[in-house]
């Protein structure tokens, strides 16, 4: 079950950047490990992450085996109008996770 925690640092003011933080529960299996029987463990890391602000891409990242488990991403988005941030990511197994957060721009 994909799950994540999102935090938007407030207050959000029009035209100014605000901080977005997200941590995603994911084992980020590197593909370099072997199990107790010595068989290689198949790589399964989040490959692509994208954040959209009212539908438009504002941040994206390509992750790899070098990223620790439960990745924590922190970035800034410039506030335009109230709306919604949507987050979407996909791992090697094809499992897609989504999360959303409401953006309220102070008038």
């Amino acid at each position, binding site marked *: 079950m994909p*799950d*994540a*925690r999102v*935090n938007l640092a407030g207050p959000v003011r029009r035209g100014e950047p605000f901080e977005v*933080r997200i*941590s995603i*529960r994911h*084992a*980020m299996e590197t593909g370099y490990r072997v199990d107790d029987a010595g068989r290689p463990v198949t790589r399964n890391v989040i490959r692509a992450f994208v954040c959209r602000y009212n539908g438009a891409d504002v941040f994206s990242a390509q992750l790899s085996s070098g990223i*620790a*488990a*439960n990745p*924590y991403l922190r970035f800034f988005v410039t506030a335009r109008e109230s709306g919604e941030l949507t987050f979407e990511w996909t791992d090697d197994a094809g499992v897609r996770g989504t999360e959303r957060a409401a953006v309220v721009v102070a008038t």
Partner: protein
Amino acid sequence: MTRGLASAAIVMVVYAACASAQRSESPRSGLTFASPEIRAMQADDVANPGMLWVERGSRLWQAEPDGAAKSCAGCHGDAATAMRGVAARYPAWDAGTAAVLDLEARINSCRERRQERPALPRESDELLALTAFVAHQSRGMPVAVHIDGPASAAFERGRALYRTRVGQMNLACTQCHDDNAGKRLLAETISQGQPNGYPAYRLEWQSLGSLQRRIRACFFGVRAEMPAPGAPELTDLELYLAWRAQPLPVETPAVRR
């Protein structure tokens, strides 16, 4: 005369036992041995990866099991009030099972007896999440366990095991965590081995893990046979460690190296 001497000897033995129960040093949380980066990660609930398990636990707390059984919340209500302070008292004697139970075992006992569902395996994500969620409700409260009455036998076994040399290294817990705490073991600082942050997120594990997992890792480290997860001697040690940690605050979910 003989009787007088004997009773004097008994008094001395009792006195010696009490004296050995004293802790030589005041307890220091593992947090104080951690790097500034790790301390910052624990202090920030957004950055603390252990909070992912706490949040999952809060959903499990509300989740209605199949069949007629109630959810955790169905009996206990709001965990913020019902579970506040509970983890600080564990491990504790449980009259229903006539044994000392740690928090994981207590949650499983509730699942089996009240919800009529199979016990969750130790170190399973669900059990870790529920334990972390329940323990999190006591964050900041001082650890205070009962070691008298029916729990005293387990406590004494735990205290004895803590002082027993084990494994190919022939080391007892006390030799690292009392005699050499604060000193270096290769690149690492030896902590006092305090349990107040568990279940904790260890960077080495890349995951949340239980206190039993951490204790088992120490058994592995001294090349001793590891007790099985859920083994009574681990619960005995957990009880002794909790007593020894008093009055450190519960930090769950802590972040450790």
